[in-house]
């Protein structure tokens, strides 16, 4: 039975990686098969679903979706473009950091869906190619998302599963290295793309003439939406002393916003990406099947054997292994499978957070390597495709792979110096 479980999981990963069938269908079929053939029973399948992760995702989707209606994120992107004065270095740095910071506190997938269309318009107005800017934003979103518990799906899953890690722990242990990585990567990308980003001064003046606040002035519920979003982020910082799960914080914020700033609940709930929620649901059941059959324990045992139980060896194996795995498959299913492995490696000893940071850095940074490695990349590629400006897998790889390698070297040095 364990071979069957492994076979279903590997086959599902392959189909997801090659995008033969929509990933949600794959995850649900894989989960269904595991239950039908008896790899795990219905009771264990329900238990395997990580409800806090689903709650956190749903809450943030509602919160961000309702706030997005007000135009505040468009306002931010436009103000950044205006502040750059059309100077390429400033434009790249400001766009990268706004994307990184928004990704950290909203989530990187949402940020990309908000910022890429407006970037396409800005690039048209400035008469420059949008592709370099969008590539910088994708890479910045995955690096920025690494900084917090809610910034990137791998971190959401880790934070929801590991009760000992708070929102503040993620910030303290991951934000500085993410910020440093973002600075290095942004500088590198500017050097690579600088010739494609030269702006005619007359075009820069067109950007200066835009009125970013106009959409906000015409929107309802701006103050309420922004206040609840900011309040929810503050509450994330306080969730541990308040003894509230991050999912409860997100759902409480979403409920409050639904109460005070949504005229039509049905319409507001359309902001929830149900395909993503069901993808996670199926994934958790499949990983539950692997756990049930003892495959997770075997993988953890193999890692322990290879590293000889060395803390440094385990940390490095998790960091690089998670990055390679995420690059080849997708960092969400890979992290879902790796979380119980890392849990198993810890054994019954005192809690050690180092391997969790290695997993977060490996999976999130690994998400930059290929176009299919992270949900944000796939979403951005979709926006570009629909806009008639597709980006090829190879072109993404040519930038993404070196950036990932550089980021992982920074992460490895950070882990060796401060965590392992």
């Amino acid at each position: 039975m364990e071979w069957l479980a492994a076979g279903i999981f590997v086959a599902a990963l392959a189909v997801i990686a090659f995008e033969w069938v929509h990933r949600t269908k794959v995850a649900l079929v894989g989960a269904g098969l595991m239950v039908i053939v008896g790899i795990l029973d219905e009771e264990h399948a329900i238990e395997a679903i990580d409800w806090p992760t689903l709650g956190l995702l749903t809450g943030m989707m509602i919160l961000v979706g309702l706030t997005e209606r007000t135009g505040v994120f468009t306002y931010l992107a436009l103000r950044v473009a205006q502040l750059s004065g059309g100077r390429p270095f400033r434009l790249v740095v400001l766009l990268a950091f706004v994307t990184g910071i928004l990704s950290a506190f909203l989530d990187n997938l949402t940020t990309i869906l908000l910022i890429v269309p407006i970037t396409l318009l800005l690039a048209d107005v400035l008469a420059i190619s949008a592709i370099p800017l969008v590539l910088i934003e994708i890479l910045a979103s995955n690096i920025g998302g690494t900084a917090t518990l809610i910034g990137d799906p791998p971190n959401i899953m880790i934070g929801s599963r590991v009760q000992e890690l708070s929102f503040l722990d993620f910030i303290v242990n991951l934000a500085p290295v993410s910020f440093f990585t973002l600075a290095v990567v942004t500088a590198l990308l500017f050097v690579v793309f600088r010739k494609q980003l030269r702006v005619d001064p007359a075009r820069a003046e067109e950007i200066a003439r835009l009125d970013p606040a106009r959409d906000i002035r015409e929107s309802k519920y701006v103050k309420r939406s922004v206040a609840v979003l900011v309040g929810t982020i503050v509450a994330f910082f306080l969730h541990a002393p308040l003894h509230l799960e991050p999912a409860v914080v997100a759902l409480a914020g979403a409920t409050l916003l639904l109460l005070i700033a949504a005229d039509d609940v049905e319409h507001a709930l359309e902001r929830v990406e149900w395909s993503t929620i069901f993808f996670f649901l199926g994934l958790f059941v499949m990983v539950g099947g692997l756990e049930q059959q003892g495959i997770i324990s075997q993988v953890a045992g193999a890692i322990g054997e290879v590293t000889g139980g060395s803390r440094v060896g385990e940390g490095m194996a998790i960091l690089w292994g998670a990055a390679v795995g995420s690059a080849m498959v997708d960092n969400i299913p890979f992290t879902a499978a790796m979380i119980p492995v890392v849990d198993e490696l810890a054994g019954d000893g005192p809690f050690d957070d180092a391997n969790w940071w290695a997993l977060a850095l490996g999976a999130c940074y690994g998400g930059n390597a290929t176009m299919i490695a992270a949900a944000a990349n796939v979403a951005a590629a979709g926006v570009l495709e629909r806009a008639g400006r597709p980006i090829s897998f190879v072109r993404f790889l040519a930038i993404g792979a070196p950036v990932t390698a550089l980021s992982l070297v920074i992460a490895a040095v950070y882990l060796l110096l401060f965590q392992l």
Partner: protein
Amino acid sequence: MPTLREMPLVDASVGRSATFLDAARALTEHGVAAVAVVEDGRVVGMFTDDDLLRGLFPRYLEQLRHTAFLEREPSALGARLDAAAAEPVTAHMREPVVVDVETAAVHVAERFLHCDWGAVAVVERGRFLGMLPQLEFARAVMASRTDG
């Protein structure tokens, strides 16, 4: 209730090899919400007024929710038609909504309510007869009720 055969159908169609500009002209000349894209007499697609707008403006516009900040027309955003004009209509068309000429009016009304544009293609044994604008359909139904 009148049958579809009695309703004023508009012969608004273009061939499969037509360009975006051909389809745009057919749409505006006939003043209907959609024209049929036809191959060997059969409807293979539909080009609607939404498709026309999408072709006239940058394609990412649909993914933007806020554009009031563009108080004046940025010079770079006006050149899209030149690029789109020669593109094949098949790159812009969508799945057609087709009803048979013998269809009951209630079914036609249901079709109109479930598609996002105001014209359906009417066919007889699979062959294109013409486009039925939603307003003409409603007018015919109202007239039949008044007469009755």
